């Protein structure tokens, strides 16, 4: 699993996380601020792209 993570760039990991929120994982009760999570992930993806990650 960790080896898997090391093979991917930060941008790939962020994009995968964003894709997971497309249908928000609502069955997870800890993710109560789903909308905020989407905003944060999109912000991070944009910034990562800008930094060339």
């Amino acid at each position, binding site marked *: 699993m960790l080896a898997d993570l090391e093979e991917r760039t930060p941008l790939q990991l962020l994009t995968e996380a964003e894709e997971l929120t*497309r*249908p928000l994982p*609502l069955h997870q009760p800890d993710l109560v*601020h789903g909308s905020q999570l989407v*905003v944060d992930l*999109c912000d991070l993806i944009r910034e990562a792209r*800008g930094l060339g990650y």
Partner: protein
Amino acid sequence: MATDLRPAYADIDEELFDVDQIPMTSRDVRSVGEMLFDVDYLARQLLMDVGGDDAGTLLRSWPTMVAAAEDLWASLPGRRPGVDERDRPITSLSAQAATIESSLSGRQAWPGQGPTNPRVDQMTQTLLNAAALVRRYGAEIPHEQTEAHRDLEAARTRIMHGLYLTAHAVNVALHDNGRNRVTDARESGRRVQLAQHHSPYAVAPTGVWVDRISVCENTARSYLTDRFPQALAGEATRPVDNPGRLAQALANWDIQSHRALARDLEPSNVLLITRTQGLIAGASMVLIDAAATAGVLEPSDRLVAAIADAGRSWSNLASRWGDLVPPAARLDEPLARAAAEVRAAYRHITHDTTTLATPEAIAACPELPQATMASLRAIGAGSELAHVVAEKADTPNLTGPARALSRRAHNDVESGLATPPAEGDVVWVSPADILARRAVRVPQPVRETLRSASTATAAAASTAAASAMLAHSNCPSYRPGGRSVTAHAQYDAHVTSAFSPQPGVPPRKPPCSIDRSAPVGPLR
């Protein structure tokens, strides 16, 4: 009689009920839920791509989007008479947006008069379409029932979620615009007074707009706090009602993408085409996984790896075409509608209420065999589309926004993707062009990497196409004597009810002929 070889009415009539004969329609056939999901998708894309040059167009589009959202909100059934606390946030947002609109009207100072933002305009149109749909059929919704009530709550939450993401995108663009102004001023030796609140870059003339949009953003956020996931849990889904929907959507997508590419080159259209091809690859992998679980398709690591590689290549190419899209670029409307329908049709199969469905759940979906075959054909046809797109990279005099191209050129040279210039460090785009936000000719490194990314995409798409076509022809459920007799039986029953002119009468063609791929193959 026997010598009369002219077709009888019954022969022609059969065509009408043959599921191979895909009726083409330009209507928006999405449900309200799918339209709202698409607003979410478009808002995310906007937020991921937004930059300082978009600030003016976004500001001009924002009030219209809020008005459309309020229109949809008001159309939802079950509205209580008088002032309702639940409606207060959308009413506040509407009032705030109305004042922004009146400030913008006839304004000479920044942002002045000019184009609106195509992405926000697309969201606005989608919200208006959804409102029209609700007004037409909303009276049939039993809103007093718990299920319907929760579904309506979910719709309100989705509307507000779309507004929140968009307001945040406008704010990001304004900040970015301010930062560009500060950078430009410093480079030209001028002193700049940094702002004291929001961010140092909330400088004039964007600072005042940051204030105003921040209020809108906070209003939307306050509604959503602690509400979004719970409200969405009540969202209802439409039952499967058209097993050929994905095939229709992909066939229409094929037509519209080719039509768009046949016309004058618009980078915004190429961007949408490459992105949607990436989405088709991603969704196909989900379907293939489920199809392998259901025994519809033989499991194949090579197929999955090839499609994953093609998907990555399409996404990389999309990101490069994204650099060439000017801030106010328009999308071809039929193309945008076709892409939206492809997204909705895939989601209809791959998702349950709000989450990605498990492979087992997708495997139980009666439309899976047909959808998987349609998806494999689309992957198979992607190779030709990749070559058409690759040709566009050779178009002479390609232009794009100066700032994005400058950044891309330097990044490509630094990362070794483009050939470094013999003369050392080169300024690929003049600072004056960046400052004036001009469209400039694509610099040599960007053109070189665009071509190499196009070639790589064509190669990856060809490999994926070969694997997909092999899987398509080897599909056990489409071979005589294949193993999934149960799947056929279920499928027959479904097709009978959906397409047979008489209830209980089986379709007049065997299921193995259902996905002959006539609508897709020849068009590519």
